[in-house]
């Protein structure tokens, strides 16, 4: 192989992650058409932060050229990434930003992701109403960035009131329970800002309570939900965090390994090392297109998009 790339994933609790890895593998295989042999080695398991650091070390022992990581912590990898870079290994993080100056982030801006949903919700509600938020895991960086995103947007609408925020740990059933409790205690909710799989749960509670006509809520991107959305004509909108981010990162990585230079160095984000990918948005206007894109796929399949090799090449000199 010309390049050996290690993919590190530290959490296997959702289909999204599986799809992420599958798409990355497919992207690597696609380089063959360009005459480049890209070999990927994958480590994907439920591990804690030390466990994922060990994954990186294992890649270093194997002598990979690049490591693409979906990190379990934004800051914990600073020392190990430094060691990796010293060993001549390219490090790219995806899906969650890392603080290391020895790594590059290729993925979406989680804060903008949160803001996009909030903006849709605020506009749908006409700039006023009672809103609740159902968040992921408290203390998790992606969650906190998304929270910061919606807070900033809602802050701009004085008539929108966030009556409560709860955490349902990115668990669909917990999201459903939380929504249930919220509906019972706040009968006058107009909008719900909810992320990922929890959205499906929250919507189930809303539908069970017969309030789908009076409540607008953000949604998610799995085929299962898109089907219900279409069928029940839900008042929903979903920012897309495509599982293709790792594939995009891989394409960027290969180009970097080929020695190409970015037109604009990755310098966005709070850590000044990010290269943000566009965030697609699904609402009732483009829902049919999204539905078509996931047609025939299994229920857990997420609507996706990725930076093709050609798109990626355009970013380089």
């Amino acid at each position, binding site marked *: 192989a010309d390049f050996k790339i290690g993919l590190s994933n530290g959490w296997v609790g959702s289909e999204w992650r599986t799809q992420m890895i599958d798409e990355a593998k497919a992207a690597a295989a696609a380089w063959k058409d360009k005459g480049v042999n890209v070999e990927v080695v994958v480590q994907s398991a*439920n591990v804690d932060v030390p466990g994922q650091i060990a994954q990186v070390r294992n890649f270093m022992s194997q002598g990979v050229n690049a490591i693409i990581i979906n990190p379990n912590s934004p800051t914990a990898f600073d020392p190990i990434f430094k060691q990796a870079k010293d060993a001549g290994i390219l490090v790219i993080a995806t899906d969650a930003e890392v603080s290391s100056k020895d790594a590059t982030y290729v993925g979406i801006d989680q804060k903008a992701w949160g803001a996009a949903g909030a903006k849709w919700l605020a506009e749908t509600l006409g700039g006023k109403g009672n809103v609740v938020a159902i968040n992921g895991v408290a203390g998790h960086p992606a969650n906190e960035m998304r929270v910061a995103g919606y807070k900033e947007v809602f802050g701009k609408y004085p008539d929108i009131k966030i009556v*409560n925020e*709860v955490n349902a740990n990115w668990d669909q059933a917990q999201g*459903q329970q939380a929504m249930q409790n919220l509906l019972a*205690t706040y009968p006058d909710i107009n909008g719900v800002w909810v992320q990922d799989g929890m959205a499906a749960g929250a919507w189930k509670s809303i539908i069970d309570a017969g309030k789908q006509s009076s409540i607008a809520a953000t949604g998610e991107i799995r085929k*299962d939900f898109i089907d219900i959305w279409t069928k029940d004509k839900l008042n929903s909108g979903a920012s897309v965090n495509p599982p293709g981010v790792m594939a995009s990162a891989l394409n960027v990585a290969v180009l970097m390994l080929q020695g190409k230079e970015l037109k604009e160095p990755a310098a966005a984000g709070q850590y000044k090392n990010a290269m943000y990918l566009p965030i697609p948005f699904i609402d009732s206007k483009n829902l049919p297109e999204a539905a078509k894109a996931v047609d025939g796929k299994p229920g857990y399949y997420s609507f996706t998009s990725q930076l093709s090799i050609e798109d990626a090449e355009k970013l380089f000199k």
Partner: protein
Amino acid sequence: MSADALASKPAQNAVLAFLKKPLVVALILIVLLLAVGEWLSPGFASPGQVLRLLIVAALLGIVAAGQNLVILGGREGIDLSVGGIVSLAAILAGNVMNGADGGILPAILVCIVVGAFFGLINGVGVTLLRIPPLVMTLGMLGVLQGLLVVIRNGIPSGRAAPGLSDFVVKPFLLGLPGIIWLWLLIGLAMALLLRRTVFGYRVYAIGSNEQAAFMAGVPVKTIRIALFMLSGAFAAIAGMCLLGYSGSSFANVGEQYMLPSIIAVVLGGTPLSGGKGGYTGTMAGAVLLVLLQSILTTVHIDESGRQMVFGATLVALMLFYGRAKAMRS
């Protein structure tokens, strides 16, 4: 002391003894928590909301039924693998029925068989190989979590049949959804099993002194293996109901039931040492736990605050129960 006072003393003691029963404690606490909930956020104790809470409690309570049996069987009996089995069952059930009512029955069968199968492995490890239950089921949890990844990679995940969803959330009889009736049925069955069958007597026997039970002809291993199989089966049933509750299966849905199912058992007055206690208390324990969690969701405070209050309240609640005897009595 007057004769009157003398006479009333035993009566007082009887009242006190009654009030100290775990089930009574749990029921009183439930009422108390409902009042607190209603006071904090009006509407919390409305019949509709209570019903919805009961549905959630039923899910936990069904997992806790198996957990309860394993704990009663003693020898540090505990089943951490229920978390994995719940998830596995939810996924399998979704695939088997895949949105069709006709698939419900096969799904029930598949789930129970698979749940019982993993319970069987747990039971064999615990009895024949004599691995401590905590270790065996912890290891099994790791295996199951791995298996979930494999399965989700291999086969498409299906959807709950409408019939199943209706069973869990729609009123069925006397305004109560099917799952509540199922839970009550399980409660009744457990009570009969433990109090009116030889199996039940034997469960308590091995829980209190395994060696003595063995010498009295109790088929110790068979019983213990059966307990783990029942635990797996109950977890699987709960997993199916969970699928009905959320409509589609996903990832590690079951993990959130692992430790809470143990807490529900303990709050119900069954000590982890086994050989003592029953399921009625556990049902109350499950309701209590779900109630507490719900109250905390409705209160508008930071997640960190919620967790601190939750942890501290759990410790405080446990003070009402199962405090070990003082060594110097």
